[in-house]
């Protein structure tokens, strides 16, 4: 059965959760992360809870059985976070000196800002990494359509991903051809800028010629027809979505309650 081959089956139930369920988790998690970051803890008033909260992200990645893929994608986020933490803690003056190494001083205010910004970025970007590493683009577009998003929007989304792949290949071909024709890609900045033009202009031209024909092709294939479209690919639900949603909402409500209580008391 061909249709069967097109479906995505995941053995891990957390990874297999419906994208809309996972997306709710992402949104609530990010909201909680920001809320927790506003809790100032102890004498230094550092946002320590947001560090603790971050434990959930790797835990989810491990639980979803994608820790390797997660780590590969997360290193980019980590790099940004590390830069933020280092820069903030070293460069922002103010408060007592917490630690000192040669001429580098870490002051209280710097450390406060470092933790606040660094872990907020790690939390929010991290949970998104989890989402995208457990969800395929096809599932995202399918879930969007199911939730009533216009088919033109999902068309643009999926077509964009494919176009990036196609133009990426074309740019390599054009670059090679330009080099073979003697367009220099090394040398001073003027030479390199010229090479940039020589590669990019034909690339864009090649991509847009035939756009009219592509419009008509889509029309020939009923793109614009006003009827309910059928779809070979369907996303499955695991049956645990309700439970996960409930837990996520319950935790959020608890944290909001805690925060409100702290304000009032």
């Amino acid at each position: 059965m061909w249709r069967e081959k097109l479906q995505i089956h995941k053995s891990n139930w957390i990874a297999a959760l419906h994208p809309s369920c996972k997306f709710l988790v992402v949104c609530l998690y990010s909201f909680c992360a920001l809320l927790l970051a506003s809790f100032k803890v102890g004498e230094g008033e550092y946002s320590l809870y947001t560090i603790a909260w971050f434990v959930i992200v790797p835990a989810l990645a491990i639980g979803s059985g994608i820790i390797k893929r997660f780590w590969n994608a997360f290193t980019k986020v980590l790099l940004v976070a590390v830069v933020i933490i280092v820069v903030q803690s070293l460069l922002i003056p103010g408060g007592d000196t917490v630690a000192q190494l040669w001429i580098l001083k870490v002051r209280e205010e710097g450390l406060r800002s470092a933790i606040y910004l660094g872990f907020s970025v790690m939390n929010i970007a991290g949970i998104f990494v989890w989402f995208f590493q457990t969800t395929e683009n096809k599932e995202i577009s399918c879930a969007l359509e199911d939730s009533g998003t216009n088919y033109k929007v999902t068309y643009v989304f999926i077509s964009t991903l494919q176009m990036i792949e196609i133009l990426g290949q074309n740019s390599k071909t054009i670059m090679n051809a330009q080099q073979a024709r003697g367009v220099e890609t090394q040398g001073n900045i003027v030479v390199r800028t010229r090479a940039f033009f020589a590669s990019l202009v034909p690339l864009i031209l090649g991509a847009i010629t035939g756009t009219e024909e592509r419009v008509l092709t889509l029309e020939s294939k009923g793109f614009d027809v006003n009827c309910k479209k059928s779809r070979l690919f369907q996303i499955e639900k695991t049956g645990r979505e309700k439970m996960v949603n409930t837990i996520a909402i319950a935790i959020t409500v608890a944290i909001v309650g805690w925060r409100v209580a702290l304000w009032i008391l």
Partner: protein
Amino acid sequence: MDTVIELKNVTYTYPLADEPSIKDMSIKIERGKFYGVIGENGAGKTTLCALIRGFAPSFYNGELKGEVLVEGKPTTEFGPGELSLKIGYVFQNPFTQISGVKDTLFEEVAYGLENFGVPVDEIEERVIEVMKMTDIYSLADKKPFELSGGQQQRAALASIIVLKPDILVIDEPTSQLDPEGTESVFKIIEQLKNEKKTIILVEHKVDMIAEYADEILVMKGGRLIRLGDKQEILTDMSLLDEGVQLPQMAILGERLIEAGIPLSRVPITERQAAEAIGQALQKARNS
């Protein structure tokens, strides 16, 4: 006579153009026949196709005088998508006919059926059948944009045929293909002919037209200059002066007759040529 498409005194001008691309053209296209459209570049062949399919004026805008009727109804009165099920349209460039949103060729061919809301079980059945007919079933799980030009063009044909239109407008499907690709595309067109589809094919390879078409439409400067049986038109040497290409076999036959070899008729295909020359040789031997 069962007319499916009719042009009544049609004159059409593209936006910003100085003069019309189609000038006062009237024709009747009969159901179930295969029309080959020939003529030099800029003769208005593609515009004729666009008019029949309604792309002109619905997409290209411009100015249309006269009427283009499909099954008696003006093309301008069809709703979106309605004409897609009646008239299949295949373009020149294989690459532009890919939807851009499908990962496998199987899904690519199924795309139109999905849009028309055909039930999934039926989609699968029809797609497999068409992919086998167009000889691309073995490529079903390949990425559409990584195929060769010939494979892509067969896929383009497949994704239109799968919609089961009665009429097919095919605009220079082989101009960007190698001989092998051309051959495979014409095999498919031949099958469509056997299924009694109405086919309108624009093609520069006039030898192919001679082989497969029933009727020939000759265009020049936006006008229809000839319409009729292929045997009659493709052997009319005066068309050479109009910039129209004729089959090599017809020209060969004409030369042989000029040289005094009594052929029973001017051939337009290799098979006819072999026959006629054979007969002439037989006669010569007998006398």
